């Protein structure tokens, strides 16, 4: 892809103004200790390390270093990601906006307080996996009702994709969109009733909560 690849972290820092820390969380302190003396106030450091707080990052770097925490999710690779940015003490609003624009090809990019990052992890980081589970279950349902598996999976994926687009692009409340699909006495009303009986809403809230709590826990370590 034309990127210069080196073994030297220092070389990356010396040749770049914007530096992404894309190592696993347990390696962050080692890496930062190694590059710290090369970091200037002009550098912008963006950490994608899950659970590593701005406070931790700032402590490992020279004072008043510009640090931003970023939480992306898997579909970023298809330019349909959901990214939340949280700015450190020395990262100005301009830097935040600049980064937001820069990252916009990833998909949806928003800036928020660090306190929201864990919830974002639970919602859209793990949320992608929740959607995969739902897709698999939809397909299983269709297979139970007589459809071949591979076709069921393709249709399930397209159904969720289509629904996602409607949610994003109509700007309507999901409850409104649901009402619009729900013909009186029709199939959807019956299906939704079964979902409600199965407690899908509570289970989903529980899931986001559990993932968020775990993110918080990991952040405390």
């Amino acid at each position, binding site marked *: 892809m034309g990127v210069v690849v080196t073994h030297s972290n220092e070389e990356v820092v010396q040749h770049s103004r914007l530096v992404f820390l894309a190592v696993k969380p347990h390696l962050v302190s080692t890496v930062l200790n190694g590059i710290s003396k090369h970091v200037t106030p002009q550098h912008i450091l963006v950490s994608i390390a899950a659970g590593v707080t701005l406070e931790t990052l700032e402590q490992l770097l020279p004072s008043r270093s510009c640090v931003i925490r970023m939480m992306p999710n898997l579909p970023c690779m298809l330019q349909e990601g959901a990214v939340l940015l949280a700015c450190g003490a020395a990262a100005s609003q301009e830097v935040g906006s600049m980064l937001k624009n820069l990252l916009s090809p990833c998909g949806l990019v928003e800036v928020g307080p660090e306190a929201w990052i864990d919830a974002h992890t639970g919602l859209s980081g793990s949320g992608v996996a929740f959607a995969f589970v739902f897709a698999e279950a939809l397909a299983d349902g269709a297979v139970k009702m007589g459809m071949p598996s591979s076709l069921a999976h393709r249709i399930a994926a397209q159904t969720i994709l289509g629904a996602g687009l409607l949610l994003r692009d109509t700007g309507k*409340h*999901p*409850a*409104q969109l649901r*009402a619009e699909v729900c013909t009186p006495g029709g199939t959807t009303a019956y299906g939704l*009733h079964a979902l*409600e*009986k199965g*407690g899908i*809403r*509570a289970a989903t*809230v*529980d899931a986001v*909560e559990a993932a968020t709590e775990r993110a918080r826990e990991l952040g405390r370590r």
Partner: protein
Amino acid sequence: MSVGFIGAGQLAHALVKGFAASGVIATHKIIASSPETNLPTATALRKMGVNVTTSNKETVSRSDVLFLAVKPHIIPFVLDEIGPDIEERHLIVSCAAGVTISSIEKKLLQYHTAPKVIRCMSNTPVMVREGATVYAAGTHTELEDTKLLEQLMRSVGYCMEVEEDLIDAVTGLSGSGPAYAFTAVDALADGGVKMGLPRRLAVRLGAQALLGAAKMLLDSEHHPGQLKDNVASPGGATIHALHVMESGGFRSLLINAVEASCIRTRELQHLADQEKISPAAIKKTTLKKVLQQPGVTGVTGVGVPTGISLFNSHNSKQKGNSGQD
């Protein structure tokens, strides 16, 4: 224009109270009949200035709009009794859950060529002029008849014409609905009391919360889901409570309730269609009182141990056996 009620129970009382409050009709132009003169509702009606009698026939003769406000299984019994007295001017409005227009028309056609029948489903908050009423018009009903009913029912709340086959669902939703709400407020109040509020205050606040929410919703163009979101601040008390409700299956519980009420209504209709009332369904003393009324020619088969078969009455007046489909 005079209004009559066959039956002086909860529904008659609620409707009269609403009509009186709205001023759509003066209470002295209302007459209600019931074999039980000691019913608390009958007493209340009398206090409001309504003529309360024990004679259904008197009610029929002194009214233009005739509400059938008795329990569904009593309807065929009443229709047989008053059938011969129905005139051209009468507009029969049945409020009985599950009783179809065709079953009522079938009975009345034995006595009259073009009985005007409307089936409606209302609810008790008509009493405070916040009722929810739907109606379906029968075969021989004219536009002016439905307009008259709308005028009456709109004075006590919402009123809309619907297809007859939706009325059972309406019963499940807004017919039974106030009972769901009473239960909800009672339980909310229990929650308040548990958390330290005095009972009276808790009930008041619970009721006001539901009232306010309903008003907001009716005045808003937004989906209730959106209004819910507007109340639930991030990480706040409400969203925690909503989660608890979802975990308890709140939504599916309500769906189940509406469904159960609707299904039961259809069952009642089916039972009524079978046109046999067991003697156990009517009090012996009530039956005696009705038979004692002047002008009531005994309904054949009444009191016979095998049951009251209402299509066997007045055979001499029928050309054919109209009891069969």
